[in-house]
Structures are given as structure tokens and as C-alpha cells.
């Protein structure tokens, strides 16, 4: 499973990527987290607020650090 975290490198974006990596490790899921910092790509997904989380081609979350429950729901 491939999850992209979109964000220009702000603190909340890092926190989001770390949270997903950690939850994935805890649940033993095979997940690659890719951080997208290039503004063109971020904007290409149509998000206006960062951090945003993209799974497949779908924006599942944007504008804040997701909750743990959110991450668990995406991984299952």
C-alpha cells in the first residue's frame, strides 16, 4: 500500500508522515509512505491546505494532522 503525504515540509506535515509510519509499523501493514514536498505535485492533487494524505489517487485527508483512528481506518 502506498500512501503519499503532501506538504511543503512544515512541522505538521512531518508529524503526519511519522504518525502513519508508526501506526503502519505497529499494525504490521506493508506501507510505503512517500513525502511529496514539491509544490507543483501538491497543487496537482487539488488540495488547498496541507498536510494532505493521498491513497491511490484519492485525497483522504487535508488541512491537519490526522487522528490515529483515521490512520487505522485507512490501513485496514
Amino acid at each position, binding site marked *: 500500500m502506498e500512501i503519499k503525504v503532501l506538504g511543503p515540509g512544515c512541522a*505538521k506535515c512531518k508529524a503526519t508522515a511519522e504518525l502513519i509510519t508508526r501506526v503502519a509499523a505497529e499494525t504490521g501493514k506493508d506501507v510505503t509512505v512517500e513525502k511529496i514536498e514539491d509544490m507543483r505535485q501538491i497543487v496537482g492533487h487539488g488540495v488547498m*491546505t496541507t498536510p494532505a494524505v493521498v491513497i491511490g489517487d484519492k*485525497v483522504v485527508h487535508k488541512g*491537519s494532522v490526522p487522528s490515529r483512528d483515521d490512520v487505522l481506518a485507512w490501513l485496514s
Partner: protein
Amino acid sequence: MSVQTSTHPAPRNDWLWHLGVVAFVAIWWLVYHQLIPFAEWLTALFPVDRHSHTGEALAFFFYDVPKVMMLLTLIVFAMGVVRSFISPERTRALLAGRRAGVGNVLAALLGVVTPFCSCSAVPLFIGLVSAGVPLGVTFSFLISAPMVNEVALALLFGLVGWKVAVIYFVFGLGVAIVAGWIIGKLRLEGWLQDWVRDIHSGASSPATTEGDRLSMVDRYRLGIEAVREIFGRVWLWIILGIGMGALIHGYVPEDLMARIMGADAWWSVPAAVIIGIPMYTNAAGVIPIVEALLGKGAALGTVLAFMMSVIALSLPEMIILRQVLTLRLIAVFAAVVGSGILAVGFLFNFLF
């Protein structure tokens, strides 16, 4: 904002939340009115004369820190709840295709209530421009969003009084509206970075639309989240700002500020704007200083100009915007906003 988690238990819990919010406001009110005795009591614990410079500075500090923290908590919570009704996507839908004039007014007003964080400034900017929001209207939004915010208004209201808070609100919006309108008139779309114009012409995929099915409890939660987040960001600035303010209050002689920042010194307004630009702080840090300067005889217009320039024209923000704007456009932006701030400063020094 995530919406998948609106699975809170039966509405039985809701009234507990409402009750909790009401109780919190009531307690807040009671405590808020005990702050002066509390500050005096705390100052008396120190082995200094209450009327000495140090005593004055300490009393100022002990009164202002809890007062500002309490005001911020309440207002940021309220704004967090209000903002849960407005997303950037909704703002974009409201602004798309607006003409100059009405569009600028609407954009400046939406800038006050739309959730905005400076690290999202670029995607927000592109999101607006690519959806057909005119450049000038986008700028009105981008100027008002950081300048006229709830943190600034809460601090001004608490520290300087409601009149100055209202003046700041009205003239902050005024600068955003007029500056955006002028930038729109100049037709500078060609001065965007090339790649932004490409997105502009191509269709950008609309972000997934979220339903607005948040319960009131979810909105309370978002309010609490906003308080936590803003405090995490500004508490240090507030303490530093009030510390600076306390030093000015206790040690700076009365007539010094009246002389160098008074209404008679015409050059003080441009000086305040120029000094304000490289200063990187936010409303939380600058307003306690403003309060102390006003108390020492600085003119209102000069101080307003200083405050607006610190908050609205910051170098870090310009560096972020550099990704989407050419240097020429940033220079125009700074010049137009700076002139607006100058006008406000001179106007107030002239009137009062």
C-alpha cells in the same frame, strides 16, 4: 479536517458537552474578574517596592500574561467553532468568478474567518487563482487572512481596548480591500511564475468535497483543537512580547516615546513600517509591545502602522510566496500594502 470520525455516541452525550461549554465560560468569567487582585498579590510576594520600576514591570507582567492567555483561549475556541463551518473549498466556491470590488470586499471578509496557516499559503493561492478567482481578489484574501485574525483582535481588545480593536479591524480590512483592488487593476497576471500560469490554464482537479455533516460536538472538538494548536505556536511569543512590554512600561521614560513616536514626528510612520517588515513575530508578540508604547505616549497612527506592517508584511511570508510570484510582483505587493499602511498611520495621527 477529517470528517470520517463523526461517529460519536448517541446524542445523550451532547447536552453534557453543551453544559460543559457553558460552565467553562461561566468559570472563565469569574476568574477573569479576579486577575487584578491576583497580579497584585503575586507582585507583593517579590521583595521590591510596588512603585519602583521593577515593581511596575512585574505587576504589568503578572496581570497581562494570564489575561491574554484567557482571552485567547475563549476567542480562539469560538473562532475554531465558527471556522468549522467554513472550509477553503467553500471560500473558493464563493469567490470564483467574482468581479473586482464586491469580490475584494468578500475576499477580505472571508480572509478573517477561513482557516489559514502560512504554510498553506501557496496551495491556497494556487487553488484560488486556478479556480478563476481574479488575482486582485486573491490578494485581498491573502492580505486580510494573516493581518485581521482572531489572535490580533483578542489581544487588542484585551490589552488596548475595544475602540482600537474595532479601528484595527475596519482599517485592516480596508487595506486588504483597496490593496487587492489596485493589484487587480494593474493586471499583473503575467507576473506569476510560469508554472502557476500553466496550472491556471489547465484544469486542476477539484479536491474531494467533504460533506458538512459535523455535529456540534465535533465542532467543539475542533475549537479545542484550535486552542491547543494556537497556544503551541504563540505562547512563547506572548511571554516574550509581554516581557518586552513590561520592560517598556517599567523603565522607558514617559516623554521619550511621545517624542520619537508622537504625532508631531511625521517620519515616525514610515520608520515604523520599515522597522516592522523584517520583524518576524505575530500578533501575539507585537501587541503587548504596542500596548506599552501607547501607554508611553506613542501616537495611535504610528503604532497601528507598526503593528500592521509587522503582521501583514513579513519577509518569511514573502519568501514562501516567491514560489508562485515573481520578484516584481512581490515588490508591487509590498509597495501597495505598505502604502496602504502608511495612509492609515498618517490618517490616524492627523485625526487624533
